[in-house]
């Protein structure tokens, strides 16, 4: 026993221990198996994505073929064209942009102030506010849809882009506050204090230190807010008439009204997804840390 323990440190440098966790029982056959499973898993995950792309570039006859082709034999952009030409598509795209941008801008301004309060001040009721912000993120929004609908109807804000914008603003607000809080508390307080000693006012500290340093955080937060608002369709579909929907709702209505034209639907789905996927890939580092942030102590 003693011999084993003594020998271990000496043997260590020779063994390749690049990552600690899975070195137990590492064998050549095991590594090959692991890599194979990894590749199969990736292909399985990617298959639906690939199939959407594949379908979108097929002409109608190929889409509705009993023997599906795995690469379009006659690739075409027709599906994209017919999606653009479809009723409401461009209108819905515009609506979606308006609603999303208004919600994100509003949430950013309002949320930043609250985030500042939570991150930089100790005050009575702070914990209470944090509790509220965490809790409201968990309330299923669909549960609130009935009273919300009745409320907005009372003030004539149903079938209006403003009503939806405000709703989306509130939808992404808790997340915005919570994320910005994280970014602001990442700025060392010593910077604030040094500036105060050098004679800056509170306002100057905000404009010259906190705001510029939170820049990347503001981008990440607004992008994520954008994704959330852009992906929403239940609220807008319930509150608004067909002329005032967004692209997600278009995808849903497209299927019910005219049977399913799979080609244009998949093309529409791709167009709808592009901003989300691009934005997501840009900020994925921030998202990956997750609601779980604190559990991973770095």
């Amino acid at each position, binding site marked *: 026993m003693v011999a084993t323990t003594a020998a271990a440190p000496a043997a260590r440098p020779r063994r390749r221990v690049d990552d600690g966790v899975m070195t137990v029982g590492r064998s050549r056959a095991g590594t090959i198996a692991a890599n194979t499973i990894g590749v199969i898993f990736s292909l399985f995950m990617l298959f639906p994505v690939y199939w959407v792309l594949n379908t979108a570039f097929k002409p109608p006859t190929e889409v509705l073929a009993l023997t599906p082709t795995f690469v379009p034999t006659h690739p075409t952009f027709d599906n994209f064209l017919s999606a653009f030409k479809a009723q409401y598509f461009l209108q819905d795209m515009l609506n979606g942009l308006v609603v999303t941008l208004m919600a994100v801008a509003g949430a950013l301004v309002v949320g930043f102030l609250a985030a500042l309060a939570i991150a930089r001040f100790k005050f009575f009721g702070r914990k209470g506010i944090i509790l509220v912000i965490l809790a409201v993120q968990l309330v299923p929004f669909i549960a609130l849809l009935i009273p919300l609908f009745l409320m907005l109807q009372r003030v004539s804000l149903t079938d209006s882009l403003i009503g939806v914008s405000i709703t989306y603003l509130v939808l992404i607000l808790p997340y915005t506050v*919570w994320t910005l809080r994280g970014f602001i508390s990442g700025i060392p307080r010593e910077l604030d204090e040094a500036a105060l000693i050098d004679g800056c006012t509170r306002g100057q500290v905000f404009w010259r230190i906190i705001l510029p340093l939170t820049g990347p955080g503001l981008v990440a937060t607004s992008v994520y807010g954008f994704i959330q608002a852009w992906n929403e369709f239940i609220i807008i579909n319930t509150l608004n008439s067909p002329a005032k929907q967004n692209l997600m709702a278009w995808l849903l209505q497209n299927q019910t009204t005219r049977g399913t034209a799979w080609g244009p639907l998949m093309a529409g789905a791709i167009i709808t997804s592009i901003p989300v996927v691009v934005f997501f890939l840009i900020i994925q580092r921030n998202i990956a840390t997750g609601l779980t942030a604190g559990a991973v102590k770095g």
Partner: protein
Amino acid sequence: MSVVETPATRRTGGSTPHRASGRATRTRRRRQGSGLPWLLSVPTLLLLAGLLGYPLVRMVVLSFQNMRLRELISGRTPPWVGLDNYTRVLSDSVFWTVVGRTVAFTAVAVIISVVIGLAIALLMRRVAHGVRMLMIVAMMFVWAMPQLVAAQAFRWITDSDFGVLNYLLDMLPGVHYQNHSWFVNPWQGWSVITTLVVWAGIPFLAITLNAGLTQVPKELIEAATVDGATFWQALRNIILPILKPLLTIVTTLSVIWDFGLFTQNWALRDGHPEPEYQTLATYSYTQAFGQSRYSLGSAISVITVLLMLGVMAFYIRQMFKIGEVD
């Protein structure tokens, strides 16, 4: 509501040492101006109160009234009916079936996705660099895909006439899946829905848990190896205990998300889920907006939130406990 509502504190973290040092002096100074932080929070609080708090109260009130289309149009106060909605809902066997189905789906979907998520996270540490990159890229694409788009993709893949799934299964010897409809038999339909939910949920779980695995000290694993521990022993006695706080949180979140299932069964059933495909969320929605029984729908929503309350409280307590909320 799809991806994750997440604070990105870790990225910018590293401020932990500051927090501890000199707290006493700072606290004293900050406490003086306790008006300013409240002033800064007022817009947020007003918006949350107006569009989340008030509807929440209204939802409860509504569940004790009888709001139908007539009251909606005339704007008159709906009549009070006391507990009628609740007795009606709770004595309805359809409701209990929906509750049972939602709970069962949540249990199955959460268990499968957490187990696979953990397995993939472990696998990511074992594979070659290139394969790991491939896995991450694949998962990022899935994660980025909007829920509704993913649901439409699955609807197309499982289409009875031209879906590629039937085509592929039909190629297996002895299997005849031509024109097979996946949603006639609810068990098969729910397998499709569960596959969709698990498939879409794995990226978050695997990538988060993989990040958590970097916290497992190499020395512990090495020591265990030297002492002759098998992989399963190391997993059970070293990795899982260290991963536990993170596992608890991602599991809780998965429960909350899966219990509120709406988009997937809604879209896969063309916006008209049959009784066998209703979950609590779609059931409440259908009652309210499909049948104009706003009060009954509210009562179902109230019960749904009450059912979830324990899990939500647990999640928030956990967030405070691990010190994320400081």
